[in-house]
């Protein structure tokens, strides 16, 4: 798309300067320092470092557990993105119908977003707790199946996916509600005149119109699931049982921040970063073309 632009020799640089300065100082410098460590073996206090070449990488890539954490990450990020984006689209569509009490409904749908992941984790830990949680208690009346996430890996995964999706919901709903409200009534009127049913109207007209939002939300939810969501996992499962909920970023946090193995965590970040940059670029390349901006 060709954009009309302004011409100025120095102004654009002045405008990007604050952001670039903060980014370089507090992102690139520290990030490069951390990534550089991927080629070293570092003592916990960081006072002794020795160059080990690619050893940190070869160790990781020879470790079946690491592959397991990669698979877990995709399951986790895929699950969270699907559940939270699809769920919020449905809820936003409901919350933009012409009915009474909308602002109350919207508020009640939005506010969980204000809750810190660590706090959400604690609340969910309490609700899902095998011994005193309400959910297992009531589930036990419905089914004899024991939802013991302390030992059953898939239950634990379902739990952290649900809890994490829940923390993303409000954010996504806010965006969808805005997007849906912004669709001019005339467009929908035209569809009504054409005799399109609500579902058909949604898929044919509404969905393409909000595709930029969907694109943005998919990218962001995925990135957040990959990177920022160890709060819930840390509060609830700590990567267990076994390593069933050990996703890449939590392993990295455990090895680097808790275990003080800065070399290995550096190598893990390089891999993680490459992976997500690759995924995002793929999405930009293939999805953004299909996204309707105008």
């Amino acid at each position, binding site marked *: *798309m060709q*954009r*009309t*632009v*302004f011409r100025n020799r120095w102004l*654009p640089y002045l*405008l990007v300067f*604050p*952001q*670039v300065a*903060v*980014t370089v100082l*507090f992102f690139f*410098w*520290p990030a490069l*320092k*951390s*990534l550089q460590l991927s080629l070293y073996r570092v003592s916990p206090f960081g006072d002794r470092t020795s160059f080990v070449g690619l050893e940190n990488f070869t160790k990781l890539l020879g470790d079946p557990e690491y592959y397991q954490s990669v698979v877990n990450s995709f399951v986790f990020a895929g699950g969270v993105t699907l559940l939270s984006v699809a769920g919020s689209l449905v809820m936003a569509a*409901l919350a933009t*119908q*012409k*009915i009474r009490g909308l602002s109350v*409904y*919207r*508020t009640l*749908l*939005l506010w969980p977003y*204000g809750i810190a992941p*660590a*706090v959400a984790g*604690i609340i*969910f830990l*309490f*609700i899902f707790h095998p011994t*005193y949680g*309400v959910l297992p208690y009531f589930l036990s009346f419905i089914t004899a199946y024991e939802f013991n996430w302390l030992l059953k890996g898939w239950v634990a995964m379902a739990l952290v996916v649900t809890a994490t999706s829940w923390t993303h919901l409000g954010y996504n709903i*806010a965006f969808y509600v*805005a*997007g849906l409200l*912004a*669709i*001019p*009534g005339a*467009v929908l009127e035209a569809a*009504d005149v054409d005799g399109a049913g609500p579902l058909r109207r949604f898929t044919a007209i509404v969905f393409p119109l*909000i595709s*930029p*939002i969907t694109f943005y939300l998919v990218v*962001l939810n995925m*990135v957040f699931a990959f*990177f*920022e969501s160890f709060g819930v996992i840390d509060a609830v499962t700590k990567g267990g049982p076994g390593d069933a909920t050990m996703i890449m*970023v939590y392993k990295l946090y455990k090895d*680097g*921040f808790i275990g003080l193995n800065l070399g290995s965590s*550096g190598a893990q*970040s390089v891999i993680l*970063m490459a992976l997500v940059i690759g995924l995002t670029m793929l999405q930009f390349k293939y999805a953004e073309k299909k996204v309707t*901006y*105008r």
Partner: protein
Amino acid sequence: MSAVGAGQLEQARVRTGAVAAPRKKPFPWQRAVVHALLIACIAVVAFPLYYAFVISTQDIQEVVQRPPRLYPSSHLLENYAEAWRKAHMGRMLFNSFVMGVTVAVGKIVISMLSAFAIVYFDFRGRMVCFWMIFVTLMLPVPVRLMSTYEVVGTLGWINTYQGLTIPLMASATATFLFRQFYMTIPNELVEAAQLDGAGPMRFLFQFLLPLSWANIAALFVVLFIFGWNQYLWPLLITNSEAMRTVVIGLEGLIPRSGTELPTWNLIMAGAMMALLPPVAVIIFMQRWFVKGLVESEK
């Protein structure tokens, strides 16, 4: 209400020049179904919070009783007073507030400017800048925590408000959002502004900014919550009780040594206090930007 939404709205208005016609009201039974579905969704979404509130009003025996008690009890005041006292909530709420507001305002200002430069100027290194900023989405926080701490230490910012807030502004979400929003502004608007003889800064403040309020409000909510909910960074960077934030105070109520029974009612009382301000911001801002949207439709 948000960037993309507002942008499309404006674009639709500008292009069609049409006033949106009110839509047909659905049939009553359809409305009833929508109400029912919405209530069902809210029951699912709001239950964890409701339950956390219920727990915060019970004494510890009611918390662990079987079958679980799903309605509030009478210990609200004592639990909240106890949690408030134990976690030094007053000062911490203030610090969290400072942190949330500073991070939000700072990030909005710098990313509004940089996104403007990236979208509306053709300069050498434009794409480098964009990708440079964008890539900050790509590196998880725990990786750079320790080295960022070192940078902040070198600057002498440990245990200061600037050390607490400025490093958190180095992230791309807001820039990305502003970029997405500016992309939806039709060229016609820029051209009209240029015909008016508006320079870039006047265009930014007189044309883009008024269109961006909803956007900024949404971002403020997002970033305020981001700042408010931080845990690891403030934990690392603050060295005195006076600098602590509320999420840290809350964590202090939770036994982590595994040698103590958790007092869930106090924990939930602390959680309610910690989440009230961000939730209030959401509720307050939601009204504000929905109103803004409705107005702009007229």
